[in-house]
Every structure is written in C-alpha cells, then in structure tokens.
C-alpha cells in the first residue's frame, strides 16, 4: 500500500499503535485462501444483518393497527426516514416510490456503523471498503433508474449533462465536468465519506483506549494521570461515535434522496 497512515510509536517501544493492516485486515477464520475468506469483520457484518432482520421481524410479526410500544418505536424510526428524508426531499408521490430503497439504505448503513461501538464487536462493518461500496452502488443504480424512469434514457442524459440556460460554447467544458461530477464522483464520494468516517473513528477509539492501557500499566508514575485523561477522552469519543454512526447513515440516505430528486426533475 502506497502511503498508509504511519503512526510512529508514540510513547516509546511499549506502545503498540494501531495500524491499518492489523486493525482492518484480521486473519481469516474460515475458508482461508479462497475468494470467500471469512474473517472477524465479515462475522461482524453477518451479526449486524441478523440483528437488524431480527428487530424488524419482531416488530412486524404480530403487527396491530394500534401499535404497542415496541412496534410504535419501530414505526417512529420508519416514519423518520419516510417523512424527514423521502417526503421532505422528494415530495409525496415520488417519496412514496423511493421510501423502500431509502429505508433499506438508512437502516443497513446504521446497523453496519453502530457495531463499531457495540462492546464485543468493536469494529464497524462499514470500515472496510466492501460495505460502503455496495451501498454506494445501490444508491448509484437507484438514482440512475429514477432518472431514466421519469425522463427516458436520452432525456435523463440530456438534462443531466447539458443543463439548459448555458451559452452553447460553454458545453465544451461544462459537459465533461457534469459527467465527472454526476456519474463518477457521486458513488466515489458516497463510498469514501462513509468509509473514512468509520475508519478514522475506529482508529481514534483504538488510540484512546490503547493509550489508556499503556499509560496505566507501563508508564512511569506521573504519566498514569494522563491515562485517566485518555480514558475520559475514549469514553467521550465513544458517545461521539454513536452520534457519527447515526449521522453518517442519515447523510448517506439524504444524499441518495437528493440525487434521486436531482435526476427526476426536468430542468
């Protein structure tokens, strides 16, 4: 790997700083050597999927017209996506069509993100490129299909690559920029935004708690106080990570809705 995050041994030879290779590419558990290699992070993703499926199955199992508390809470969460994201950005009818896709993306990304703070799992399923890439491809196909459905393939390409109200000679530079920004940068930035946020969050948590361990057990007397500081920082940052997990799921879903809206509107 070309550059990587080179973390120097911060406080001396006893401190093991986190590395990309060690944190995000653990050894295989099953099927080593094949393309279906199963490691700890894949296991975390499977656990997150089972968790989210179980929660929604339990809520929908004996769904009543007047919901009880658990079904009511899940309905509140679903309404958040439907009202605050789909209907706010897309309006009533188009929002109704897109709600299913946006709900899947929101709860899928949130489940993958939140495993980074769950005690025994401790690594976000979306901190390795596979999961963000898949969700970004889903969103990419989603907004292209929405645009083609509402304006036809030719009409969609024309309205996104040749925005009206521009003097004709400017299309020479504007159209490549529009193409790059709409069809190439959108899925790439969706992927990297989610990946980088989760990756950096995990590295910071490992740094805080690793520093606490090192300072409490191996450092000289006066440094142990610093261990208390890093512990408090680690706890504060864990709360912050929960917020970031939800926020990144919200941003991913909101951006998908916005891209769908931009594809569907004829300029």
């Amino acid at each position, binding site marked *: 790997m*070309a550059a990587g995050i080179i973390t120097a041994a911060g406080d001396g030879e006893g401190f093991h700083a986190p590395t990309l290779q060690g944190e995000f590419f653990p050894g295989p558990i099953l099927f080593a050597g094949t393309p279906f290699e199963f490691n700890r992070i894949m296991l975390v993703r499977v656990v997150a999927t089972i968790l989210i499926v179980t929660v929604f199955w339990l809520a929908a199992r004996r769904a009543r017209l007047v919901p009880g508390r658990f079904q009511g809470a899940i309905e509140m969460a679903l309404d958040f996506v439907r009202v605050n994201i789909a209907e706010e*950005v897309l309006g009533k009818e188009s929002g109704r069509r897109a709600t299913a896709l946006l709900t899947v993306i929101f709860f899928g990304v949130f489940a993958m993100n939140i495993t980074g703070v769950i005690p025994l799992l401790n690594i976000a399923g979306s901190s390795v490129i596979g999961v963000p890439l898949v969700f970004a491809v889903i969103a990419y196909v989603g907004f292209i299909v929405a645009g083609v459905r509402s304006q036809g393939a030719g009409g969609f390409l024309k309205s996104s690559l040749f925005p009206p109200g521009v003097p004709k000679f400017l299309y020479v530079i504007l159209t490549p920029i529009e193409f790059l920004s709409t069809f190439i940068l959108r899925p790439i930035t969706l992927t*990297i935004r989610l990946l*980088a946020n989760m990756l950096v969050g995990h590295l910071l948590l490992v740094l805080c708690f690793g520093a606490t361990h090192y300072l409490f057990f191996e450092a000289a007397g006066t440094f142990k106080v610093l261990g208390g500081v890093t512990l408090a920082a680690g706890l504060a940052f864990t709360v912050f990570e929960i917020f970031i997990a939800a926020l990144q799921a919200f941003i991913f879903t909101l951006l998908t809705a916005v891209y769908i809206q931009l594809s569907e509107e004829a300029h």
Partner: protein
Amino acid sequence: MELTGDIATIGYGLATIGPGIGLGLLVAKTQEATARQPEVAGPLRVNMFIGAALVEALGLIGFAAGFVF
C-alpha cells in the same frame, strides 16, 4: 537534522484547509438564515447537506489520494 515520514499526510493536512473553511461558511450561513426565518429551516437544512456533500468531496479525495499515489 533529518525529517522522515510521509508527505501524503502533509498533503492531506493541506487538503483539509479548503473544505474546513467551506463547511464552516456553509453551516454558519445556514444558522444565520434559520435564525432570521425559522419556518424555512427544513429546506435550508437539506441545502446545507447537499452543499456539505460537494465541499467534503475535496477533502475526501485528498484523503484517498494519499493511498492511491
């Protein structure tokens, strides 16, 4: 005295200046506008997120470029 390390991290550090200022301006303007006219807070918030996605793209490209090159 010799400085060793990776220039990619310096490059990324420089790359965060622009998006940092940009995002600060975005959120500040949205706050100001919401304070002036709270009833349009919803659409303003959505526009803020769209703007943040575009501004953030440069910071993310800076982060990724360190890995690619």
